[in-house]
C-alpha cells in the first residue's frame, strides 16, 4: 500500500501585521513531498522560506490554508487540529543552520534526549542512538561534548538527533551554511541517504546551488509565491 505524502500544503498563506503594516510572507503555497523524497527549497533572503518551514514544522501557524502530514490534516488556518507538540515529537525532525546541540550534553546524550522526549529510554534508546551516530561516522566521538566536536561533527550529531524518533518529515533550514563546501556537500548527501533509507520526506532550505544534484527535485520561493523548480541540476534532471 502506498504511503500518504510526508507533507502536503494546500493554499498556505501567512500574513504578518494588519492594515497598512500588513505583509504577506506566503501566498497560497501548495506543495507535496512524498516519503523518501529529498527536496530543496530555494529562494532569496526574505522570500518566505523560513516562514514556510516554521509553518510546516508546526511552530508558526499559517493565517490560511491547510497542512497535512502523513495524510492527516494537522492545521486548518491558524487552528491546530492535533496536539502540535506531540506531533512534532513523533513525526518531525529539525536541523538548523547551527547545530543547536545542547552544550551540557554529550553527542550521545543529545540524541538520547530526543528519544527521551519521544518516550524511549533505557538500553534500546542507547543502542538506537549509538547506531545513528555510528552510521553518521561519529560513533567514536559520541561521548564528547559539542565543544569538543568540529562543525561538521556537530551537524552530524544534529542529524542523528533529528532522525532519532524516525520522523516522517525532516525539515532542514540552511544546514550547510556554516560549513565549507566540501563538508556542505557531504551533509547534503547524508540527507539524501537518510531520506531514502528512512523513507522520510526531506525538505532542505538552501542557498547552495552547487549541491542541487543531490536532491530529487527543487522548489522555488520568491516574494511568498511557491513554484516548482525548473528541475535543472537536480538528480532527476541529471538522470
Amino acid at each position, binding site marked *: 500500500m502506498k504511503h500518504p505524502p510526508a507533507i502536503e500544503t494546500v493554499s498556505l498563506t501567512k500574513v504578518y501585521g494588519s492594515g497598512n503594516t500588513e505583509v504577506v510572507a506566503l501566498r497560497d503555497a501548495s506543495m507535496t513531498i512524498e516519503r523518501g523524497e529529498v527536496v530543496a527549497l530555494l529562494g532569496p533572503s526574505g522570500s518566505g522560506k523560513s516562514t514556510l518551514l516554521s509553518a510546516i514544522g508546526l511552530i508558526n501557524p499559517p493565517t490560511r490554508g491547510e497542512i497535512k502530514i502523513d495524510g492527516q490534516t494537522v492545521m486548518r488556518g491558524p487552528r491546530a487540529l492535533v496536539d502540535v*507538540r*506531540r506531533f*512534532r515529537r513523533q513525526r518531525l525532525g529539525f536541523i538548523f543552520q547551527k547545530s*543547536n546541540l545542547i552544550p*551540557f550534553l554529550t553527542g550521545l*546524550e543529545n540524541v538520547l534526549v530526543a528519544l527521551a*522526549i519521544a518516550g524511549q529510554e533505557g538500553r534500546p534508546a542507547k543502542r538506537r542512538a549509538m547506531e545513528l551516530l555510528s552510521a553518521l561516522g561519529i560513533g567514536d566521538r559520541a561521548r564528547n561534548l559539542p565543544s569538543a566536536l568540529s562543525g561538521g561533527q556537530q551537524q552530524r550529531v544534529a542529524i542523528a538527533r533529528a532522525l532519532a524518533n524516525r520522523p516522517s518529515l525532516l525539515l532542514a533550514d540552511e544546514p550547510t551554511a556554516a560549513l565549507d563546501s566540501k563538508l556542505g556537500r557531504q551533509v547534503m548527501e547524508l540527507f539524501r541517504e537518510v531520506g531514502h533509507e528512512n523513507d522520510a520526506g526531506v525538505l532542505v532550505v538552501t542557498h547552495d546551488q552547487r549541491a542541487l544534484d543531490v536532491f530529487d527535485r527543487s522548489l522555488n520561493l520568491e516574494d511568498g509565491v511557491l513554484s516548482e523548480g525548473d528541475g535543472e541540476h537536480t538528480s532527476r534532471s541529471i538522470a
Partner: protein
Amino acid sequence: MNLAVRDVRYNLGRFLLTAVGLGLLLMIVMGMGGIYEGIVADATLLVDRLEADLWIVQRNTRGPFAELSRVPSSVEDRARAVPGVADARRFVTHTIQREHRGQPLRMAIVGLAWPVDRGEWLPVIAGRALAQGHYEIVADQTLGLAVGDRLELGKDEYRVVGVTRNMLGTGGDGLAFMTIADSQAVQFDAVGEATRLERAARHGRAEQRDLGLTQPGLLERADQPSATIPALGPPMVSAVLVRLQPGVDATSVHSTMTAWPDVTVYTADEQRELLLRGPVDRARRQIGLFRILLVAISAIVMSLILYTMTLDKLHDIALLKLMGAKDRMILGLVLQEAFLLGGIAYVLAFFLGERVYPYFPRRVIVTSDMLMWLAIAVGVLCVVGSSLGIWKAMRVQPNEVLS
C-alpha cells in the same frame, strides 16, 4: 536522563561558587536564629540552674537580672522561718570589668551561699567546685582563664579552681562563681584613702549633731571600721532564693512572703518571663527583624540566581520545546536545579555554621527544630525563587531556536 544534573556538571565551578555564596547567606540566617536561642538560653540559664522555687527581691523591682535589686541578707533567715520552706540562700550578682594580662576582662560575678552552696551543680569541665570560703573562683571558659590562674580583684588575689562550659550571664558575659563574702568584698572594695575619707566624713557628721557632742564615745566609734558600727548593717544581697519542701503549695508560701512590705516575690517561671520580656525582648525583636530581612534577601538572591540560570538555558529550552518536550521536563530542569542549589547551600550552611559559630562572641544555639524550619524555608524559597525562571521558561516559544 537528568538534564539538571548534567547542566550542573557542565557549569560546576559557577554552580558551586553560587552555592557557597548562598550557603553563607543561609548560614547567617541560621546564625541569627541561633543567636536568638543563645540569648534566651543565656538569659534563663541561671534561673534554670539555680533551681529555686521562689525569688525574693527588692520591693517593686524586677531584679536581680532585669534591674538592680538589694535586699537585706536577713531576709534569708526570715524566709527559712516560713512553713513549707526547705531552704533559703542569699544570691549576689554583679558585673565587673578589669584588666588581666593587658586585656579587658569582663565577667558577671555570682556569689554562692557558702558553705551550703559550693557550686557542685556547676558544669565543671576542668578542676573542681569551691572547697574553701575565700579566695577561690570557678570561671567560665569564655573568660579565657585556666585552672591555677590567679586573678587580682580588689585587695585580694583569687585562684581559679574550676572551669565551666556555657555558663553565661544575660548580657553574654562569662560567669565567675565565688562565695558571697568574696563577691561582696569585690563589689564593695574601696581603696584605703576612700575608707579614710569616709571615716572622716562620718566623724564630721557626728560632730555636727547634738548626739555626737553630748556623747563623745560615739565620735570614737565613728572612726572605727563600718562592721563595728551597729547602725550600719551588713552589705545587702541581690536576692534570696527559696526552695520549697516537696508537696508544698507554692501559692501559700508565695502569698505569705508577698505580705512582707519590703520585698517582692517571684516564682521561677515569673522570673524567667521577666527576663524574656525585659532585657531579651528587644534583642529578640531586633534579631527577628534581621531574620525577616535576611530571608527576604535570600529569596531575592535565589530568585535572581535561578532566573539567570534559566535565562542562560532559554535557547536550549526553546529547542527542547521544538523537539516536543513536555512542560514537565522543562519544569523539572528548572526546579531540580533550584533544589540542588538550595540543598547544597543548606548543607554548606550547616557545616560552615558548625565550624564558625563557636568563634562568635555570644553563644549560637542551633536547635533541631530550627534546622527543620530552615529546611522547609529553603524548600519554599527554591519553589518561590524558581517561579520567575519557570515563568520565563514557559513563555519561551520554540521558534526562538530559528532566530
